[in-house]
């Protein structure tokens, strides 16, 4: 097991109280696995991704633990986490377009970052150039300022930089949402290629776009309102989902040729519960066509088949 997450809860501190963005989440990712993390915006998937690498000012680790290759991560200790960042856990952020400081040359940024982490630039320089050419960039980009690169070039540069030290876990946070369809495909393929070449061991791909996940992911984890709804191999999630929420999510997927905007209109009626004070029991029950009285209790995340877990009283009652 590459990554093991146990009962992880991460809350956001706000004025009106704590927002339970990630609430008691348990799952694991195997070596070489690319796991998609899907759900509506605001379901906590981004918070989950971020909390694995760095808790920002308002995020609070409430409960649970995370182990990477059997080593427990010191999530609460920002200093101690530094040791793992970049080298063992890395991230390709949502904002790849602005991830590089505008007043430094790309090569200089990479050099200074590496040196600050105790990695001599010269020792990885050759590998860096090889990987850049792998994603179709000449080594000239190292001598350019970020503003001289196109959006796609920046995205690829950031992907190469983030994975340069062969991390065990890569978090790709909504990296395709700002791109056009053909670029999306290229980026998705790069993720797979990086895994195949062993640049990264396991990957979490966070997105609200299931179509992308179908292309790249081995497994898909669906979140709803801070909790896990379902996790299964990608084709199982797409073809025979068990959780009513997953089913609705899949059925709302566009047919080929139908645009994303139209898809939105036929989305799932209702909206997720407020995470400030979420209702007890299954959090989907107010929108769920199958809800019944049992649903006022929190359903367990049970394994219905090997590698297929679902949290639903109606479709996956625990035996």
């Amino acid at each position, binding site marked *: 097991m590459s990554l093991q997450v146990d009962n992880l809860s991460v809350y956001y501190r706000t004025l009106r109280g704590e927002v339970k963005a990630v609430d008691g989440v348990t799952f694991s990712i195997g070596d070489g696995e690319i796991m998609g993390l899907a759900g509506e915006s605001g379901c906590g998937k981004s918070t989950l991704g971020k909390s694995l*690498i*760095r808790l*920002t000012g308002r995020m609070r680790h409430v409960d649970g633990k995370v182990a990477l290759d059997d080593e427990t991560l010191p999530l609460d200790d920002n200093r101690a*986490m*530094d*040791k*793992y*960042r*970049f*080298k063992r856990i*890395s*991230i390709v*952020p949502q*904002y790849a377009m*602005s*991830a*590089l*400081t*505008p*007043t*430094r*040359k790309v090569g200089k940024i990479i050099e*200074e*970052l590496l040196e*600050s*982490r105790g990695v001599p630039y010269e020792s990885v320089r050759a590998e860096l150039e090889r990987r850049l050419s792998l994603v179709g960039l000449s080594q000239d980009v190292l001598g350019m*300022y970020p*503003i*001289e690169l196109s959006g796609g070039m920046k995205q690829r540069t*950031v992907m190469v930089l*983030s994975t340069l030290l062969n991390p065990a876990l890569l978090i790709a946070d909504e990296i395709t949402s700002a791109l056009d369809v053909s670029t999306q495909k290229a980026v998705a393929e790069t993720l797979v290629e990086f895994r195949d070449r062993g640049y990264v061991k396991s990957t979490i791909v966070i997105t609200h776009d299931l179509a992308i996940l179908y292309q790249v992911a081995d497994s898909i984890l669906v979140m709803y309102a801070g909790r896990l709804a379902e996790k299964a191999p990608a084709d199982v999630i797409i073809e025979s989902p068990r959780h009513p929420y997953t089913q609705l999510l899949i059925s709302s997927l566009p047919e080929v040729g139908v645009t994303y905007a139209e898809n939105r209109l036929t989305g799932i009626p209702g909206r997720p519960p407020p995470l400030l004070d979420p209702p007890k029991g299954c959090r989907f029950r107010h929108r769920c066509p199958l809800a019944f009285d049992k649903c006022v209790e929190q359903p367990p995340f049970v394994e219905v088949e090997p590698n297929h877990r679902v949290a639903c009283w109606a479709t996956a009652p625990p035996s």
Partner: protein
Amino acid sequence: MKWYLARKLLLYLLTFVVAVTIDWAIPRLMPGDPVSGLIARLQADPTAAQEMHGYYTESFGLDEPLWRQYLNFWLGLFHGDLGPSIAYVGSRVTDLIKTAIPYTLALLVPAIVLSYIAGNRVGAMAARRKVLDNTALPVSYVLTATPYMWLALVLAYIFAFRWQVFPVSGAYDFALQPEWSWEFAKSFLYHWTLPFLTLFLVSFGGWAIGMRNLIIYELEADYANYLQDLGAPNRLVRRYAYRNAVLPQMSGLALALGAVVGGALVTEIVFGYPGVGSLIITAIQNRDYFLLQGIFLFIILGVLIANFIVDIAYVIVDPRTRTGLQGS
């Protein structure tokens, strides 16, 4: 890059033309006959008034058509002739300004450069650091809100009147003549300290506040978050933040120049420092309009040149202006 600087240069040229035009037009836009107005305020006796009327009319060239007057004004300017001084009888305005300017520059240039550097450093250090922020920030706010002449008065009162560690006024000892000697340099520095400190402190406050706020914004920027996600030490993140925050601070420098120049003028007056400020107060008190007009042009010219220097520095720091891409 060339285009960027050329555009700026064009702007400054235009500004200079506008300034010269204002300078030329103001006496002529006055309600009624400007010369009579001037003389009435001088309260001279009738015969003298008669004489002065002729003198002024000729000096202004008021008997010629307007376009001719305007042209003459420019011609005079190119010959370095800004007319005669009234307060300092027998002196040319240009010569008076030439003598005063080194003193003003000696105060201004070090004060601007050093306060900019120190303010930026302290502001950057204070950002997101509780103890320093809670001390440096309030002090900076008070400093930047202080009128220059008042800080000058307070410093003079404490250090010159009470403790007598620095002289109250002048730029050098009365017994000395300006020359290149050790003795003069020592005396000069001794007299220079308090007025310099006044300018330095007030400007320092502004830079420190500006930098602190900019750094706070920069530390929230995407690149800062990405670097922290990759475990970069704070040192590196702050260095990048500083590099980016310096750019708006430099644009701010150009804007602040006018205020610092104003500060230098009033500071000189408090300390009786023989720069342009003292010249201005004499000119105002004696209604020496030629001198005022001349000083106005020199101040504008100085600020424009300083602006251009800042622009060149900006190009060196900001790659966006250098790579031919649009800089802000």
